[in-house]
């Protein structure tokens, strides 16, 4: 029993071919949309590559770009097959490629589903990568005279201003690091000597943050230094002060941003999967109905279209047998060589 058999008149076949042609061009547009989505995501990830430690998350935009290109190619081919499908002289040359085409189209759909799953699954890895990258960025903030790290300060400052965040987890991360370069510290001053002696590593730690942590929406001019000292500023209470600095940590801000990007592309990718599936199914119907029509005496008459010639189970078993035959093709089969002479002898003796 064929799977999902449908009757097709000549007119219906023509309509199917036309509709599929339009659908395949729409699928080409969707493929280019997926490709540009991948490019955009990759560019956004590369822009902040300095605060990311590893590039595992790049697998998502890479797959998107690959799938986009493959989808453009396969759907363009589907359009060409459509154009030739109603011409009996030109259609047979496509027959050879169609099985491979189905495999590629199914693979594209699977990869798109995998992309959606990966974008959620890799969130933890992205967070780890950002944690390490931001920690290094904050540690090297002061090294504006070290080649290779001299732009770290500008990068972190711009990041904090653009994403409205401060520090790794929150602003206290700046209290644990020396972010003022030694070149600008007066080692003869008592205050500095005290601070340096107050910790084992001899670092100049202070309860202050860089200016890029300042929140422009605060009603008072930004307080950057002596943040934990209520007496250092008039009418200031450290525990209640909310608007002075950005409250969010940069790790959280960046994760929200990238997850937002990937989630907003989710519906688009899902609709691309739907369109690709419908192109696949329509092309199968078109192929089987046109082939059925050409084998009949009346090529213009009715024919049947189906998804699978036999049921699902039978098709799978046939496929298994074919694959086993292919695997055995190389091996020498001694039992078959002995068995055939015996088989030849046996029937004559029985009769």
């Amino acid at each position, binding site marked *: 029993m064929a799977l999902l058999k449908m009757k097709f008149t000549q007119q219906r076949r023509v309509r199917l071919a036309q509709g599929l042609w339009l659908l395949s061009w729409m699928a080409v547009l969707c493929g280019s949309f997926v490709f540009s989505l991948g490019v955009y995501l990759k560019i956004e990830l590369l822009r902040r590559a300095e605060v990311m430690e590893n590039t595992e998350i790049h697998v998502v935009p890479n797959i998107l770009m690959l799938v986009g290109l493959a989808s453009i190619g396969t759907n363009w081919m589907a359009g060409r097959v459509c154009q030739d499908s109603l011409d009996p002289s030109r259609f047979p040359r496509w027959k050879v490629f169609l099985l491979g085409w189905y495999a590629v189209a199914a693979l594209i759909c699977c990869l798109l589903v995998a992309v959606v799953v990966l974008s959620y699954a890799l969130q933890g890895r992205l967070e780890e990568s950002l944690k390490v990258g931001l920690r290094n960025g904050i540690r090297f903030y002061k090294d504006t005279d070290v080649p290779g790290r001299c732009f770290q300060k500008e990068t972190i*400052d711009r990041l904090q201003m653009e994403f409205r965040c401060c520090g790794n987890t929150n602003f206290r991360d700046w209290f644990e690091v020396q*972010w003022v*370069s030694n070149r*600008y510290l007066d080692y003869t001053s008592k205050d500095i000597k005290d601070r340096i002696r107050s910790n084992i590593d001899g670092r100049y730690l202070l309860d202050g943050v*860089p200016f890029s942590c300042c929140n422009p929406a605060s009603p008072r*001019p*930004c307080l950057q230094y002596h943040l934990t000292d209520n007496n250092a500023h*008039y009418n200031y209470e450290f525990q209640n002060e909310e608007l002075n600095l950005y409250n969010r940590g940069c790790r959280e801000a960046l994760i929200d941003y990238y997850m937002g990007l990937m989630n907003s592309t989710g519906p688009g990718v899902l609709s691309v999967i739907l369109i690709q599936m419908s192109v696949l199914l329509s092309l199968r119907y078109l192929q089987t109905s046109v082939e059925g029509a050409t084998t009949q005496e009346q090529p213009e008459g009715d024919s049947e279209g189906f998804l699978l010639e036999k049921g699902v189970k039978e098709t799978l078993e046939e496929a298994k047998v074919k694959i086993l035959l292919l695997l055995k093709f190389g091996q020498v089969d001694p039992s078959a060589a002995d068995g055939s002479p015996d088989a030849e002898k046996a029937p004559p003796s029985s009769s």
Partner: protein
Amino acid sequence: MALMKVKFDLKKRVKLAQSVWFLFWFAVMAGVLVFSMGLFFKIELRKRSELMDNNESHFLPNLLIVMGLLACGINAFGGKVCYDSLDPSKFVKWKPMLKTFLMGCVVFNVLLVVTALLCFIMRIPLQFTLAEGLRNGMRYYKDTDTPGRCYMKRTLDLMQIEFRCCGNDNYRDWFEIQWVSNRYLDFSAKEVKDRIGSNVDGQYLMDGVPFSCCNPGSPRPCIQQQMTNNSAHYSYDHYTEDLNVWKSGCRDALLSYYGGMMTTIGALVLLVTLLEIAVTAGLQYVDSSLSTLANPEDPESESEGWLLEKTVKETFTDIMTKMKAMGKGGKVEEGGDEGGVATVS
């Protein structure tokens, strides 16, 4: 003698109509472009309306929006006329109004040129508006508790960060005003009392700038307070310090931003004007070639097309006499009536 006469056979007429139709649709898209540019300009002005004196004029973006819409309408109509011109039966219904439509197109083109000129000229009032508005903005920086001005601080801070500028002319403008609110000043402290006593208006002036003036590209953490005091900071010389705060003033930064925008828009409007002139001339050729068929019944006959039926001088004198006739049309023509009666009898 007609101006720029060209001979047309059927094939040439068809080609002319097709290319003018194509140009008309191109011009519709140009109209959409002008409309969207006007919209973009309006939004940009609105975004910084707090920093402009209240009488900032939205005349130019409104004009651009109207011209864009008009361009779309006129060009779509022209395209339809062109499309129908290949079919004599359909073209007949458009023929009577074609002359007036072409006159309308010419007037529209003149308006487009005027719009483009305005784009270049309006920079000057904008400069004064910006100067005034920025000065006031800085004065109201501290008034974060006054209704109507409480967002001025945030607007100014975000603007200084985005445009990489500080103050009106340069960062010293901040030294001349009080930008710290009185709510955060401890009036019992000696330092505060000294500063307030040091000037006539009793304002708390300091040689410091807000954080938004800081340049992230500076190798050292930002020095915002006591900027003119070299001994207050280690290894600091305020005469040679280049990268600490932004050097350019916000008036120049904003003016070059808006000026650049207006120049680009003016140049694009000029290009659109050229396109419109081309389509108007094309439509005139289509119209004249279809009305001078050698054999009106035979669509394949030859014809001539021109820009003006007579030379420029003659057309001009024709228009002048027509206008004079229209001007006299209202007056009672007593001499004419008597003359008519006299001839009858």
